[in-house]
């Protein structure tokens, strides 16, 4: 056991303790506080679970989660099967399009769909102009709209995990069923699908937890009776009403507990039942099928349908960004660059802040993530598994929980929240696992003997790391860097609780401009700008190597 490793572990642990454990325990503690006193008790929780309104929001969220999971699964199974098994042209393009929502901020989708599917949105206006309907159809305001928007946003997770299953299960499992006389559908139901359940579950849990995390989509759609939205409203708007404030905090804690519990349960179950990669080498090329023409046409139509829905987001936002006064018209008629002029003239600060905070957060991420990955993969320092565990848990924590806990922890005791550095720190804590998972998985692929050879040749640990490991890990690390940056750049759930005048980031600007009403064009232009920036970053990732990205998504679960 080298002392250096020990010291490193202690250092990383103290960072985690300060930036993760401390604020989260303050949040926990605060939820037990009896309003107006310095005493603690379970009164808040009793109040929460005895109040029919909060119970209803909890139930609503569960219903929403179930519906979103059902929808994504129903649409995801054929989609994943097509992508994983059929030999088709343009597969890469369709895969990219269908996975796109992962990197698009959820609020971008909401805006786009409001413009397109809203009461007097493009769709309704077109239908009315065509005389097909008299009165506008309510496409999105309500539970069905929430299910639709959240499902589209989460579909990639189901597709990623299921198609990984379809690709990786040993072909001979299905061949054996074929020899035994199982027809296509029966074989799929009794062998293929059950064997994919572990990989499916890894994605499904992420999907199921999304409604416990996403406060903004329901809020924008005017559907407030869901746990995260209620929590947000209570904490952000009613902080003077102690009762509501504490109910909000309890709601945050309850959501977090649901998320963590289900996440851990799913992980445990997936680890226990891992069917893929169970057997050794196979002889055939895998089960890539040449579908019949009818099936081919059908699957193309299906992929195009989903891809078109996804593409609506950047297209509609783009139309909106380059126009003004797009009201009661199916398509904009007045084209202008005004929106961008406003952004650049009045609020270049937002863009600057976004880059600055995400950049600093990224720097923290690298400085923390590389040693942490090294420690977790390559050493046997006590507590390193716990470190990995805590960091991985951050994947499941709702962003709001991080934001609220930072607000509570760094306001009075340690008054960090009065300085702008709180913004990058919070982003760092929130997106911590993204870089680490990437570094972690590429580290695992690096053969340890390459490093040992360097040490045998006389190089020290640090020199081995800089001259051997780092260059070999570079590809994976770069992908992690870009991914982390994208995720930090879009982050709103944490930042919304912490920003002060002058600290606004682009996502906050989007939210505020939408909130102000009338400035929809500017909000759309900002969202469009964000998508463009994301696209550029994604192109960089694709250049570096998308394969690693995909592998890390799967190993990390998100």
């Amino acid at each position, binding site marked *: 056991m080298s002392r250096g490793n020990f010291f490193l572990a202690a250092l990383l642990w103290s960072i985690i303790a300060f930036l993760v454990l401390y604020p989260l325990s303050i949040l926990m503690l605060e939820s037990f506080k009896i309003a107006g006193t310095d005493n603690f008790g379970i009164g808040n929780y009793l109040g929460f679970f005895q109040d029919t309104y909060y119970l209803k929001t909890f139930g609503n969220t569960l219903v929403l989660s179930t519906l979103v999971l059902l929808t994504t699964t129903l649409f995801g199974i054929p989609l994943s099967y097509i992508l994983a098994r059929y030999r088709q042209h343009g597969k890469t393009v369709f895969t990219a399009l269908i996975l796109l929502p992962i990197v698009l901020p959820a609020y971008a989708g909401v805006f786009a769909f409001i413009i397109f599917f809203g009461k007097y949105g493009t769709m309704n206006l077109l239908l009315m102009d065509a005389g097909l309907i008299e009165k506008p159809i309510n496409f999105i305001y309500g539970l069905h709209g929430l299910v639709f928007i959240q499902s589209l946003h989460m579909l990639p997770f189901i597709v990623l995990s299921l198609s990984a299953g379809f690709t990786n299960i040993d072909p001979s499992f299905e061949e*054996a069923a074929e020899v035994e006389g*199982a027809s296509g559908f029966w074989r799929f139901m009794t062998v293929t699908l059950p064997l994919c359940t572990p990989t499916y579950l890894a994605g499904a849990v992420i999907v199921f937890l999304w409604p416990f995390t996403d406060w903004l989509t329901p809020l924008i759609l005017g559907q407030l009776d869901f746990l995260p939205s209620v929590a947000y409203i209570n904490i952000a708007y009613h902080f003077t009403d102690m009762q509501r404030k504490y109910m909000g905090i309890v709601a945050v804690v309850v959501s977090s507990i649901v998320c963590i519990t289900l996440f851990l349960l799913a992980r445990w179950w997936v680890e226990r039942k891992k069917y893929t990669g*169970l057997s050794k080498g196979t002889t055939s090329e895998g089960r890539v099928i040449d579908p019949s023409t009818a099936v081919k046409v059908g699957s193309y139509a299906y992929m195009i349908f989903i891809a078109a829905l996804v593409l609506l987001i950047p297209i509609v936002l783009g139309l909106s960004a380059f126009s003004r006064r797009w009201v009661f018209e199916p398509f904009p008629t007045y084209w202008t660059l005004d929106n961008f002029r406003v952004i650049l003239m009045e609020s270049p600060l937002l863009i600057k802040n976004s880059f600055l905070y995400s950049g600093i957060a990224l720097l923290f991420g690298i400085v923390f993530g590389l040693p942490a990955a090294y420690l977790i993969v390559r050493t046997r320092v006590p507590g390193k598994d716990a470190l990995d565990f805590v960091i991985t848990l951050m994947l499941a924590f709702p962003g709001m929980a991080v934001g609220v806990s930072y607000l509570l922890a760094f306001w009075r005791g340690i008054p960090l929240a009065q300085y702008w550095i709180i913004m990058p720190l919070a982003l760092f804590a929130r997106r911590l696992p993204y870089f680490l998972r990437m570094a972690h998985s590429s580290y695992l692929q690096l053969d340890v003997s390459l490093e040992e050879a360097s040490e045998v040749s006389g190089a020290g640990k640090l020199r081995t790391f800089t001259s051997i490991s780092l260059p070999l890990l570079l590809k994976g690390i770069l992908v992690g860097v870009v991914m982390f940056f994208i995720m930090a750049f879009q982050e709103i759930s944490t930042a919304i609780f912490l920003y002060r005048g002058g600290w606004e980031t682009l996502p906050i600007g989007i939210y505020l401009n939408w909130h102000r009403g009338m400035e929809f064009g500017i909000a759309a232009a900002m969202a469009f700008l964000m998508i463009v920036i994301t696209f550029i970053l994604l192109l960089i990732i694709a250049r570096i190597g998308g394969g690693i990205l995909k592998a890390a998504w799967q190993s990390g679960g998100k």
Partner: protein
Amino acid sequence: MAFIEIQNLFKQFKNVVAVNHIQLEVKEGEMLTLLGPSGCGKTTTLRCIAGLERPEGGDIVIDGKSMLAEGFVPPAKRGIGMVFQNYAVWPHMKVYKNIVYGLKLDKVPRQKIKERAKQILELVGLTGMEDRYPGQLSGGQQQRVALARALVRNPKVLLLDEPLSNLDAKLREKMRFEIKSLVRRMGITAVYVTHDQAEAMVISDRIAVMNSGNVEQIGKPEEIYERPANRFVADFIGTMNFIPGEVVRGVEGTHDIYVRTEFGEEMVCKTSDMAATTPGKKVFASIRPEDVAVFTEAPELGDNLFKGTIAHKAYLGNFLYFFVSLNGNMIRAQVPHHLPQEEGEELYVFLNPQKCMILF
């Protein structure tokens, strides 16, 4: 009476020919092994028989019924059972469910399924394991589950694709005999694929040696070993010394051929094809290491006695292995008894003319 007939079978993947118009017959109740190096087309041939691959040409006839020429017959309708290389025992189903999967699809009555499962479990020695998941079984037990599943529907043909390659050496040896006696007892026709020549020798009634999509030779194990049809077969099955040389003359009325070897001396060999060995033809005088005798002093033996130098000597427990250099041509000799000579010393080598064969 051929039970399986493979007629002019042709299969290619993209532009690579996997099976090149092969012709093969499997007799009823026989265990035929397809043996060859990886990529020789043996597994593809087996998968064509199973119906898991669709060949581009030729036909496969099982028990008088065409599988291809009169429309493609799917795997389930071919009356086959198959054991996969990695067992392909479904990990999410218990042993019992694995085994009765096909019976249920055949709509066999429940009581019958139970009886049949019990029988087959007893046959493969898995009684009492019904309620285990495959993950709780050893490799050998999973192998038995795969075997039970393949046999439970009373198939006409059993196909085995390198079934023992994932087992450790000791167990592999044991399972060879078990599979052989099981298949014998059931009187089932079986096609077995392996790249392990020792396994093929033990298990097969006949062996078809394959190389790059072609069948090089078909015959009983001893035929293949003692009378290999060509250099490839001789080299792939066991070890063979190949001495390059040129035909000098044949002896009228016998199978004897005189060959001038690369190391400069003449030697006598047997040939199976007198007509093909015309004087001046380049051939290989071939002999197995165990047919080479070595002597410290020159014995009175006449032909094929040469003097050489020991290049390497290896002690292998039950025998000694010599690499003897005859003017630079290395001859391997397997000697059962101990010899005091060390590396660098001289030795007489006798290449028994009765065992020396001509290969091209």
